[in-house]
């Protein structure tokens, strides 16, 4: 017993760095912007930061499930735009928020279903299958809108504006949604048999099959979850913008990949986790927010984010974790 206590005391620095290096990175970025950018460390900006990151976090949580099972989803950016258009059309047509929400969720699930069937059941490589679906989705939304945004009239239900723009006390409503979904994701991934099976498949799909896990079905489920998270984010985004934009959500693609790769570098052995994804989203959002404050042109933000992704991936490889994604 004393022996094991001694062991805990002497955990080497490398191990600590492996577990908490990314959290440390987040802290450093936070301190850096607090010092350098004048208005960064203010209550207003911090709340704004949380609100900005809420959508990225939620969409990345869905991706976390997919990557937890060893998969990849390239369709989320385009899918967000399609859902937000269909949501707007149903809302304008019926005036019924709940009907529109239902349509959005079903559409998100449908995209996830197509992804999952192509990848898990038909056996297309994740990149190719989901990339092709993304391309089809892009075509469909352009077909519907001819590239034009859909604006709302004043008659839309109040609850719709509340989703993206409302506050509970001082807290923006999307931030509350984010907290709820982070909690759900952490719980499902860590405490349920679903999460256990998803990570088992990501850890060794063949052994999972031999252990009787229905690998295809659970991989399909991860894509359904990803589709669902896309739908939720699309609704928040539409409310936030007050209009539906066909190209809305495209920036989520790169940011989400960055977030989930950062997530895999955290806390352990190369699995993306719910909490890791939250920290990852915080890092990417701080970069977006802080660099904007420093008046860094947007193209430099892309360069910075790309560098962060490379850094995160290289770090995770150096620390001896194998990449989960099979190309």
């Amino acid at each position, binding site marked *: 017993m004393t022996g094991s206590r001694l062991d805990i005391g002497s955990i080497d620095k490398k191990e600590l760095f492996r577990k908490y290096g990314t959290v440390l990175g987040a802290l450093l970025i936070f301190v850096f912007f607090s010092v350098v950018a004048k208005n960064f460390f203010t209550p207003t900006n911090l709340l704004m930061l949380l609100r900005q990151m809420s959508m990225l976090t939620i969409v990345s949580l869905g991706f976390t499930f997919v990557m937890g099972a060893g998969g990849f989803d390239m369709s989320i950016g385009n899918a967000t735009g399609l859902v937000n258009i269909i949501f707007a059309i149903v809302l304008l047509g019926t005036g019924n928020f709940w009907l529109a929400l239902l349509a959005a969720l079903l559409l998100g699930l449908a995209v996830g279903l197509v992804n999952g069937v192509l990848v898990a059941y038909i056996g297309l490589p994740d990149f190719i299958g989901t990339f092709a679906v993304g391309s089809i989705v892009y075509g469909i939304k352009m077909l519907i809108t001819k590239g034009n945004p859909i604006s709302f009239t004043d008659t839309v239900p109040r609850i719709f504006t509340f989703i993206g723009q409302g506050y509970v006390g001082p807290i923006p409503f999307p931030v509350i949604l984010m907290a709820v979904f982070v909690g759900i994701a952490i719980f499902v991934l860590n405490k349920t048999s679903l999460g256990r099976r998803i990570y088992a498949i990501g850890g060794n799909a*063949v052994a999972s099959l031999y252990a009787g896990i229905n690998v295809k079905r659970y991989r399909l489920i991860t894509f359904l979850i990803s589709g669902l998270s896309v739908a939720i984010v699309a609704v928040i985004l539409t409310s936030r913008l007050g209009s539906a934009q066909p190209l809305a959500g495209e920036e989520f693609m790169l940011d989400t990949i960055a977030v989930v790769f950062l997530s895999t570098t955290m806390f352990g052995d190369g699995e993306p986790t719910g909490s890791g994804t939250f920290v990852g989203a915080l890092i990417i959002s701080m970069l977006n927010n802080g660099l904007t404050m420093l008046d860094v042109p947007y193209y430099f933000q892309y360069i910075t984010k790309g560098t962060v992704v490379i850094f995160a991936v290289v770090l995770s490889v150096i620390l001896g974790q194998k990449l989960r994604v099979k190309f």
Partner: protein
Amino acid sequence: MSQTESGISQENIIETEGVGKEFNGVWVLKDIEFDLKPGEIHSLVGENGAGKSTFIKILSGVYKPSSGTLNISGRPTDLQNVRHSESLGIRTVHQEINLVPFFTVYENIFIGSEEKQKILGIDVMKDREMKKTAAEVIKKLGVELDINRPAHLLNASMQRIVEISKVLVHSPRVIVFDEPTTSLGEEERERLLDIIKSLKKTGIGIIYISHNIEEVMSISDRITVFRDGNKIDTMQREEATPEKIVSMMIGHKSYNEYKREDCFKCDDVYLEVKGLNTDVLKDVSFSVNKGEILGIAGVVGAGKTETAKAVFGLDKIHSGEVYLYGKKFVPSCRKAINSGIALVPEERQDQGLIPNYSVMKNITLTYMDKWSRRGIMQRDEEISAAKEYIDLMSIKTTGYSQLVKFLSGGNQQKVVLSRWLNGDFNIGLFDEPTKGIDVKAKEDIYNLMNHLAGEGKAIVVLSSYLPELLSISDRIIVLCGGRLVGEFDPKEQNAQERIMHAMLGGRVA
């Protein structure tokens, strides 16, 4: 008997004196005296782990010998690496086919040794020359083969020809053939053997490794038998008989590691397989009763694993039936588990374990729902189950939360076994259950299988290690080349020799 006949030694291409190899203090090869003359076929036979491959790896420069001298063309040679060995004319045709599917025959033949010329400082392939040489080599083999055909369109036998051609373009003096007839049909096999015989006539020295004793008898000039890292003897073909070779391979050591006395066999048939055909299996039928331990013997590639996979629903069944407890059963993985079939796979790392999962999570993987309420894992119950099996199976671990990848092979195997034990299966398929694990763990696993049979489970042990099957099984059936070739009582006279003979493709007397 003196090993080196001084008169001939000068013309030996290869000659080893007291060559041995040790890894971490264990000698896997001891004091080998071996020689090879030009224009002869010298076969190497021995069970898995007898030291054949280690010896070949020394000849081809992969390993350096820990003792002894290697003479090549009469000169002591310290091989530095594979390239060095190749430059001295020693080439190997490996068991696995290693062709680039979309490359043509001639491109594959010259892969890694392309003939090129510099044009404006750029390496340009000399396609015409390569095609010419490739065509010549293939013609010499007496085969009709279009050198412009992509490799993936060739059948197994033609792919093997390409592998041989890859070696031949380097005009080797020694060719090592490692199980070249694996996965070939009867006719193709004959043709390949003819080709190897014709190569010998050109003066190439051939070392031939095979599990098929009839092949060895038909093709060899001399036969050397390895056992447990020792050379047992080298015989002229005329002095050898299949029986003699088999008895040299298995020796007369007593396998005292485990002796099973019990027999719990009941009359109820638990599993019956009738006329099973898959990609590998041909018309395989067998049954196993409640309380019985059935051994399925066969060398690597005989179809043991495929039998287990077919019953477990992992391999597609083309025709034939499976019956469980007398009722027809159409295998699928989930249904097999729900009907009480357990499969302990051969490849622990690839098929058995989630390496980054803890001992506990690996143990509870299959019957996870036992420890979940409405999908939520009940941590305390899970921990106590894991602790129970760690105790029961005496798994050496720092605790239930240790990652399974840090355990030794034997303990990892016990984790895989525990996974099934907590689910009350009726039929256990154990594929090479003691592969690569230590003696103590082996004994634990034998005891466990005996215990399980005593509880009334039907146990099928699939193994290429005959002594363990002889000591554990109530009955042994033998697979060879995907076919069932015999059924034996392990207690009958000369069971070991007869089963080994059947495993190695001899006709059963």
